[in-house]
């Protein structure tokens, strides 16, 4: 069993990486690279009168996103020439030698439009794209990460201390992050900064922020709260001290010195609304629970009253749900909800108001009830012909006792297996529900990123959605063995 699960996890990880790498290659090779600037016309217009700076800006962005390796002349000369001054003069021998060397390495040498300087650029091949992604993908924080010349006496160790609230936490000095593992009151209550995934910077929307940070940090307005700073002073602040990272001594200002006694002063802020990822989780989990609360009893009743009006009504409902396009269904439900005074869009009442959640959760849940109901009914009907049911009936048990005590226990097995699989449905459902209700979650982010040509964000979301669905399938299989001990995932000895 352990071996099987380990094997499955390894295969799942490989699966996720294959899909992510394939998407990276397709997105970077298949989408014309000029498209990324479509949403960034403001920056381009500012530079329109200076064609050379515009060229630099464009190539720098492409390099940041990971399309190519861009080296302006100054960089070329620093890297491959001993005589910097001579190299920087176009037409000189040293200049020609460097240019030839770069051309031999596969770089394209291009001249600027107005000046006679040149720059070198080289597009990454698909293999290099994947390699660059994989090598920078996982960042593990350790006490030797920080190299600050101004702070030579920096202590370097990991220790268990307490945070500003007095709760134990794994802390570190010398790492990028001050807190490696900490607890707080927000979901999922235990947090870590030890291992960070790096997907690159978001562009052209949410510029100069990492994609993962965009979807995992809070949204909305800043929240002021009384805070005790590390050096003992107290005051109202928006800073979330758990997220502090190292700030080089050279850039520490007086404000920082007033609050912090160490260099960990680069903190993120607290926001009033949950992050995109948390908002999507809230909706997903609430909808999943509601879907089961509706579909399980409905399916059981349909199986109990097979062929009667309850069954027929249920089948009509299932057929309608499968055949009506989800968009039509969502708008229809929205109309009904609006007549009860529920908000039309999520931001109207904001995240604090419970009414903002009701309609999207109901719609998301109902979207996945149809398939659940029909499967519950199918399994229960199949089980009701089994020998043990006939025996129970012969013993004189009542119909409801047979259904609730005997059949349900056996029919629930495949349904338990499907619980995590429903998460996949929730993902697809969330894309459209979040778009219709303008909920700022991950589901809405995907079409938004596609429309904005935000390549790195698309790769990030692909990774998250793929990982969620693959691991939920694995979790479903493991859950199966807990519910029914007869089922073994690994076959002993013989192979099929």
């Amino acid at each position: 069993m352990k071996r099987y699960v380990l094997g499955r996890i390894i295969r799942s990880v490989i699966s996720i990486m294959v899909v992510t790498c394939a998407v990276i290659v397709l997105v970077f090779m298949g989408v014309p690279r000029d498209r990324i600037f479509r949403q960034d016309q403001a920056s381009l217009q500012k530079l329109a009168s200076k064609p050379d700076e515009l060229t630099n800006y464009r190539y720098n962005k492409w390099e940041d996103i990971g399309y190519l390796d861009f080296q302006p002349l100054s960089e070329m000369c620093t890297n491959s020439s001993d005589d910097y001054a001579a190299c920087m003069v176009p037409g000189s021998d040293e200049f020609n030698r460097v240019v030839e060397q770069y051309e031999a390495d596969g770089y394209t040498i291009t001249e600027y439009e107005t000046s006679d300087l040149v720059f070198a650029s080289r597009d990454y091949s698909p293999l290099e794209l994947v390699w660059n992604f994989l090598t920078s993908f996982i960042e593990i924080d350790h006490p030797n990460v920080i190299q600050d010349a101004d702070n030579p006496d920096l202590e370097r160790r990991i220790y268990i201390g307490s945070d500003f609230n007095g709760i134990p936490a794994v802390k570190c000095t010398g790492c990028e992050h001050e807190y490696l593992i900490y607890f707080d009151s927000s979901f999922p209550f235990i947090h870590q900064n030890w291992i960070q995934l790096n997907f690159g910077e978001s562009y052209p929307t949410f510029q100069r922020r990492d994609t993962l940070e965009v979807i995992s940090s809070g949204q909305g307005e800043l929240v002021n709260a009384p805070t005790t700073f590390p050096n003992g002073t107290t005051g109202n602040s928006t800073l979330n001290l758990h997220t502090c990272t190292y700030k080089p001594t050279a850039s520490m200002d007086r404000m920082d010195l007033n609050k912090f006694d160490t260099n960990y002063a680069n903190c993120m802020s607290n926001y009033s609304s949950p992050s995109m990822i948390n908002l999507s989780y809230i909706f997903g989990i609430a909808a999943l629970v509601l879907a089961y609360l509706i579909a399980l009893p409905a399916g059981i009743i349909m199986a109990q009253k097979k062929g009667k009006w309850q069954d027929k009504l249920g089948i009509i409902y299932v057929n309608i749900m499968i055949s009506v396009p989800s968009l039509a269904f969502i708008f229809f439900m929205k109309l009904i909800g609006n007549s009860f005074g529920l908000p039309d869009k999520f931001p109207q009442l904001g995240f604090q108001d419970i009414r903002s959640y009701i309609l999207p959760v109901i719609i998301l849940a109902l979207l996945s009830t149809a398939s659940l109901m029909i499967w519950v009914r199918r399994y229960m009907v199949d089980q009701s012909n089994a020998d043990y049911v006939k025996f129970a009936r012969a013993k004189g048990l009542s119909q409801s006792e047979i259904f609730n005590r005997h059949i349900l226990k056996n029919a629930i097995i495949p349904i338990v297996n499907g619980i995590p699989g429903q998460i996949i449905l929730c993902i697809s459902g969330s894309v459209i529900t979040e778009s219709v209700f303008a909920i700022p979650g991950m589901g809405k982010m995907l079409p938004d990123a596609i429309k904005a040509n935000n390549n790195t964000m698309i790769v990030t979301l692909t990774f998250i959605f793929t990982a969620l669905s693959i691991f939920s399938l694995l979790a479903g299989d493991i859950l199966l063995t807990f519910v029914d001990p007869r089922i073994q995932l690994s076959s002993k000895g013989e192979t099929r």
Partner: protein
Amino acid sequence: MEENKFTFVKLEESAAEHIAAPHYSYWKSVFRRFFSNKVAITMLIIALAITLMAFIQPLFSGYDPLDKEFINTPSMWYLPPSLEYPFGTDQKGMNMFDAVWAGTGMSLKIAFIATTISTVLGVIVGAFWGYSKKLDVIMIEIYNIIYNVPFTLVVMILMYILGQGQWQLIFALSCTSWLGTAYFIRVQVMIIRDREYNLASRCLGTPTSKVIKHNILPYLISVIVTSVARDIPNFISYEVFLSYLGVGLTEAEPSLGRMVQNYVQFIQAPNASYMFWIPICVCAMISISLYIVGQTLADASDPRTHMI
């Protein structure tokens, strides 16, 4: 007993070979079964009417979504449904009747072509996949990798890479869904492949092609019809869904999804909400009718239901 009460009957060799079974024709039984369902007939008529309307009406109207003839003529804006404009006009004075049928035609075209491609490809690959154990080892790994990824995600990313447009959408839909069909067929082929009558056939020296054609394919018809019946409404739904999100068809192509996206702003307007509800209703009608026709046809094409 008198001898002249009997006459001699000539012995007929062929009559002894004749098996006294009622005449059975597969397709006749399918249609008899299908047409015994009144709901299915009604839905078939609705589906046919919508399909014919969607493919013929645009030929006469010559509808072009980019045509802005009446954009500066306020008297043409927001006309409620009437005899001249059965579905009214929108905020730019466009005839909604033309727009809805052109959009429906586009949705149907995409759904039909994508279903054809994915079914043909899926059945061919699935049949080989189910029959060959060597191919199974490779294909099942590919399937495991791809199938775990949410379908919506794959289609949206493909649309991003390929760009918007009807042929790109058809490509994205069919190249992601054929694998599902192939897997479906593979399981069915595997179930039937090792049945006793197939073993017997093989023992008697029947060539593989004949086994597939006579023993396996007839069994698959109802399975294939079921998958087609599921795919067509699904694809219509996807076109509407993706165009609504703005990653499906371009502005220049008529589409129900884009209409929904454009007119969703009028959902609260008391006199203009018809603009939003008409495309939604047409879209729901076409996919419900096609789904029910398909399901009934799938039931009817299963030979096990033909017993009288």
